């Protein structure tokens, strides 16, 4: 019984850890499928985290925080789109630039506005955060072994954003494969000239894709600062944007496999956190730094070993020059 309980708790933790990854991976999906490299997920998430925490602290409302987070990320996305699509700049460089800009400007503003060494004030009020939503009869269900516990811990009790992320996966798949927009988006990532010749604006599609990815990162970042934590802390994304991208690549740029990869990452992370301080047979206690490093090592292994050579969208990373027929 102990095992089941542990497993369920672990799975619940996995879901919570996976949420920002899933949202960011979906963001990356839209961007990369349209041909724009999604290395800027990190910066957009961080920017959203800062904006959401700031507005939530100042206004007292988590919903306003969410709005601010999404808006901030979309502004950054606009900048990225401008650099990559309109200016036809190097997409890797543009994304790194955005990431570094946000990493610099957020603490500067936080310090100036809140004087707390680069953080935003702690969010104490329940209304300022997206806390867990308890489903009906969850408390009672907890005492029922296995299915009851699953209901109480795994399904119930997550923040709204977690459920939102879960719903966004099938929604994204639907948009990508069953709508006109999705068809055109996928086309523009494979052969932008074909789209251009068909009379559809390549630039407009890519802007839309990048803005969507901004919105999704906005939700992800908001989750990090006002749901999973209670405020913004310098560099709080800690590489999650890159992890999400790796998950997307591992999932071969498709929504459900990417979801699987995110869950895998999150599970490893949750498991490692669980094992912190716990002596294991043979190796003893794993140092905390190794646990911290685990997701990054896993990313490298993922990119190296088991992916083989997966094929990205054909036109990715190449700025589109009109009339190069």
């Amino acid at each position, binding site marked *: 019984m102990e095992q089941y309980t542990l497993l369920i708790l672990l799975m619940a933790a996995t879901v919570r850890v996976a949420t920002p990854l899933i949202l960011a991976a979906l963001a990356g999906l839209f961007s990369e499928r349209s041909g724009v490299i999604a290395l800027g997920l990190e910066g957009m998430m961080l920017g959203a985290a800062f904006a959401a925490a700031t507005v939530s602290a100042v206004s007292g409302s988590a919903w306003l925080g969410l709005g601010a987070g999404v808006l901030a990320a979309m502004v950054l996305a606009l900048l990225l789109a401008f650099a990559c699509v309109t200016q036809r700049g190097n997409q890797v460089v543009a994304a*790194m630039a955005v990431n570094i800009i946000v990493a*610099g400007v957020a603490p*500067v503003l936080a310090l100036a506005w809140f004087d707390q060494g*680069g953080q935003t004030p702690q969010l104490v009020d329940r209304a300022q955060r997206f806390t867990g939503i308890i489903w009906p009869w969850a408390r009672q269900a907890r005492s029922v072994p296995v299915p009851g516990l699953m209901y109480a811990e795994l399904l119930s009790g997550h923040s709204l954003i977690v459920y939102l992320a879960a719903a966004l996966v099938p929604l994204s798949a639907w948009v990508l494969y069953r709508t006109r927009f999705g068809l055109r988006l996928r086309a523009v990532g494979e052969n932008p000239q074909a789209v251009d010749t068909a009379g559809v604006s390549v630039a407009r599609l890519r802007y839309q894709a990048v803005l969507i990815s901004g919105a999704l990162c906005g939700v992800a970042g908001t989750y990090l600062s006002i749901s999973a934590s209670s405020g913004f802390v310098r560099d709080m994304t800690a590489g999650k944007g890159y992890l999400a991208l790796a998950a997307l690549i591992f999932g071969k740029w498709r929504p459900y496999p990417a979801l699987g990869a995110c869950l895998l990452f999150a599970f490893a992370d949750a498991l490692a956190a669980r094992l912190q301080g716990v002596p294991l047979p043979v190796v003893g206690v794993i140092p905390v730094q190794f646990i911290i490093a685990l997701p990054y090592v896993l990313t*490298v292994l993922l*990119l190296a070993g088991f992916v083989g050579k997966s094929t990205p969208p054909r036109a990715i990373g190449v700025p589109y020059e009109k009339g190069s027929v």
Partner: protein
Amino acid sequence: MSAKAGSRAAEWAEILVLPAANLLAALVISGIVVRIIGENPWTAFKLMLGGAFGSGEGIGYTLYYATNFIFTGLAVAVAYHAGLFNIGAEGQAYIGGLGAGLVCLSAGAAPFWAVLPAAMFAAAVFGAGWALIPAWLQARRGSHIVITTIMFNFIASALMTWLLVNVLIKPGQQSPETRQFEAGAWQPTAADILGRIGIHVTAGPLNFSFLIALAAAAGVWVLIWRTRWGYAIRVTGENPAAAVYAGISPAKVTFLVMLLSGALAGLLPLNELMGAQHRISLDFPAGAGFVGIAVALMGRNNPAGVCVAAVLFGALVQGGSELSFDMPHINRDMVVLIQGLVILFCGALENLFKEPLRGLLRSFRRAQPQP
């Protein structure tokens, strides 16, 4: 002016004017942010300038910071020529410090001229070693080097933290750093060197490694433009298909260039550890790896440009730290912001000013009397 001279002048204008325009744009936007947080940008700018160049000590500090940036800037620039974006200079510098630091810690009573080559060698090897796995993965598996090097930065941070806290820490102290190096592992400072010939300066931690950095820059220039291997690197970076046609192996070039890049970044501790801190401390690169990206882009991946851009950024950092005395709200993060803006304008938005500049030059030339 003749057509040929006109186009030559246009080339020079692009090399000089464009980076200046990009830097100006970055500074203007930073100025706006300074305004937003309630300070006066013009005052801030003057204070920065004064802090960086206003005194001998200020200049010394500026050049000392620039030394770090030359190493990382060269690392990024070299990789760029092969078409690679090395974001891992931060981690490679950190691990290079492990190598140099270990040599220095075991130096005992050895003299400087014996310790230096050993430390250089270890630093370069460790730095290259940290680039090895991402390099191999990119060359053999096509795993995106940007993501892998970023991951290795994080892993380096975790590894070094663990080492400094648990293994290398000086027994009995709280702060995670090693004991101080023996005198033989200390770089002679500018004050030392110039003092020997009778010139008295207070130049902060500026030290001999500055000259090593300049030599490295010269070496990189010769390598890229005057050697056969440098030619192979440039072909690979510009057109991998043409490289294959020419009998060059892009995988091999990728791998070796990344090792070289890692080695160059790995030399940073020659300045920071042997020249300034005299011990291995936590997070000593302090973001120099990322500044290196800005420096390389601003210097257009040319070693001479890298040196100039490194001095500029050194001035920013030195000026910035002076500034934070008078304006406590402006701290290190401000410099990070400026870095990011420079990368944005020099790297991603480089076409923004190119076209207007060209148009300007064209109308200027048309106004000139033709022969």
